[in-house]
């Protein structure tokens, strides 16, 4: 074996080992971020999910006022956990709208009755179509949308109490 070639396996292994060390040091994250952040909300029209609360369409999000769009389901446990935070955000005069994924009107009414209703509108997304169109991969997720309908930031998972101030500020700062 020639001089250089006999060290090639060791060199290749050191490269491999470095790759593995790198990978171990910075592990894969399990969350899939939406790539629609910075882009306009895709156009959609969703019927009302509960009687008495209007449905939601993308044009409602481009009226000049920024919104917080919350993707949730009454069957989802972390959604129940974030309900107080959503109420807080709504109380801070932030327009909160909801997209109810794979939900039934009765279950949704029970949920809203139990945890309060911070939503100005709730669209029924029975086949997760709008959820997918927004690049969301599960519930609960929340999107800060500006007055022109552009998605500014995405919150994956429930909104924790410490996240509330940041979200309120983000919506208020948006045009």
């Amino acid at each position: 074996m020639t001089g250089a070639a006999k060290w090639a396996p060791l060199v290749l292994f050191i490269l491999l080992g470095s790759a593995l060390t790198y990978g171990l040091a910075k592990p894969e994250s399990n969350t899939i971020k939406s790539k629609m952040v910075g882009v306009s909300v895709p156009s959609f029209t969703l019927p009302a999910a509960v009687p008495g609360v209007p449905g939601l369409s993308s044009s409602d999000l481009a009226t000049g006022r920024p919104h917080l769009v919350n993707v949730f389901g009454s069957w989802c446990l972390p959604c129940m956990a974030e309900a107080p935070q959503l109420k807080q955000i709504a109380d801070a005069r932030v327009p909160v709208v909801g997209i109810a994924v794979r939900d039934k009107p009765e279950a949704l009414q029970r949920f809203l009755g139990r945890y309060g209703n911070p939503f100005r509108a709730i669209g029924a997304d029975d086949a997760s179509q709008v959820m997918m169109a927004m690049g969301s991969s599960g519930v609960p997720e929340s999107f800060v949308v500006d007055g022109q309908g552009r998605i500014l930031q995405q919150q994956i998972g429930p909104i924790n109490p410490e996240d509330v101030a940041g979200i309120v500020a983000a919506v208020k700062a948006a045009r």
Partner: protein
Amino acid sequence: MIAEAGLAALWLGAALCLLQLTAVALTVGGKAELAGIVRPVAVMQAALTALAFGLLIWLFVQVDLSVALVFENDSSEKPLLYRFAATWGNHEGSMLMWVTILGVAGAAVALLERKLEERTLLATLGGQAVIGLGFYAFLLFASNPFARLMPVPPEGRGLNPLLQDPGLAFHPPTLYLGYVGLSVAFSFAIGALVTRDVGPAFARAMRPWVLGAWIFLTLGITAGSYWAYYELGWGGWWFWDPVENASLMPWLAATALLHSVTVLATRDGLRAWTLMLAVVAFSMSMVGTFLVRSGVLTSVHAFAVDPKRGSFLLALLFLYIGGALALFGARVGTVREGARFDPISREAGLVANNLLLTAILGIVLVGTLYPLILEASTGTKLSVGPPYFNTAAGPLALILVAIMAAGPLLRWRRDNPKLLAKRVAPAAALALVAVVAVKLTAPSISILSLLGLALAAGLALASVAPLWKRNLLRTPLFVWGMVVAHLGIAVSIAGMACDSSFTAEKLVAARVGETVAVGPYNVTFDAVDPTFGPSWQALQATLLARRGDGDVLTLNPQARTYWAPPTETSETAIHTALDGQLYTVLGKQAADGRWQLRLWWKPFVTLIWAGGAMVAIGGALALIGRLWRARRKPQETRA
């Protein structure tokens, strides 16, 4: 008491391993006083580790809930087979199995190996001891299987329902015998590099060990594929999942090693290649273990262990693989290179075989690790799956099949191209005919499957060609082994091509009483009834399948709910005919009362695993043949 005894046995085993290493180091260094104790110490070490493993099995079978591992993985409700197999259905237990096989392999070498020169054998046992120490340390300091749990809980968590299958009793042990069996080849290579004793005698000594490990690895992968096929309920048998790739990579290296060691044994060629492949094969086993247990890769099959254990394993990898490859670089220059050979010769064919297998190994490695490296360096998440692996490795595999067909027909050292063409012509002609025939009957078949079928036909004919005009009863067993193994590959590839091209799928929402046609079968959905088992309840469908005017077959797929831990699974019902399988699954009930049914007709799919079994049988024939011949003719210098 038993747990403490097991732990004590493990510590004693580790201590003996250290003694083994010390004795070898001293002997190789010049002080030969302790040379005599190396073999007995190796055997005792193996006995102690096996005792520890046996005690762990006992704890699982008896469901001793004061041991944390038993609590997490076992439950008294489980049948005996699953209590037994649960021992290795978890990280710590399977790691103990790894160390046990490592010790037993070393003891086997110490007891059975007679052909190797004494110094090289001792160096080999030293290599085993070095590997053993690292894994003992990992086990004792980071993965103690005997840790106690206080207060003692009333019932265990139970084994995951997907693992409650005879497959768990069979697949991991065979796979580990393969993975860890390759450590012997690794140690042989270390031994040879230390003593610079690389030649035909060394190769003939190493060959049975490589064959043995390779046979088990082949069986383990085949069994795992079939288990996934019938367990997961979607009819797939290979997903290029990181854990599956982790088992394929050692197999590719071991196959290359197997062929390389034959060149070394017969022609004293490919010395450096053989040594390197021996190191690479076990290195791939260790890399695979790291990938599966460190949590760096996402997979359905992974043991998710915390990154701290991953760091320990990574350190072992650097130590062992880095050390071995450094030794290789330092010493291989002094290993006299064997005879060179002609570009048209069997040696050349085997070199091409080695290179292609190594290239495929490289592709699988790159594809498996690329997402990891990319995310760590740029934060971009990427998925690399079947489209990449099939496109990148598929063509190389097909070229390999062609070489496999020609290889056994090539003469050693130097062959005449014209004569070779005459020998290969029948197989080539058959392949050509097959291309045309298949394309005419199935115009929309993919190119990969078409070539796969054609080359499989050619390979099938070519693999039996060495038997042509031979007295079959006087043909050496290892030639039979080669024939059967290569034929097995052809059979397996034919099965793969048929499954990917000719599978008929029916997904329906059916009412009770409806009939669905799938492939040549008419399947009538007769009933759905509740049923139950030792730790589950289920809805069982009764499907009546009929082929033309043949007999009516009953299939009973189930949708099961286990209660400890609460999980839903689907149990497939499969009917195996001579020309394929009818694969049925029961899904959920829709709002309108109809039931989701998934039905597949998979022609010739069983050939995939039948071929795998044939490959293993071929290996066994070759192993028996070699051992028998060595026993009968100990003076033979030519293989």
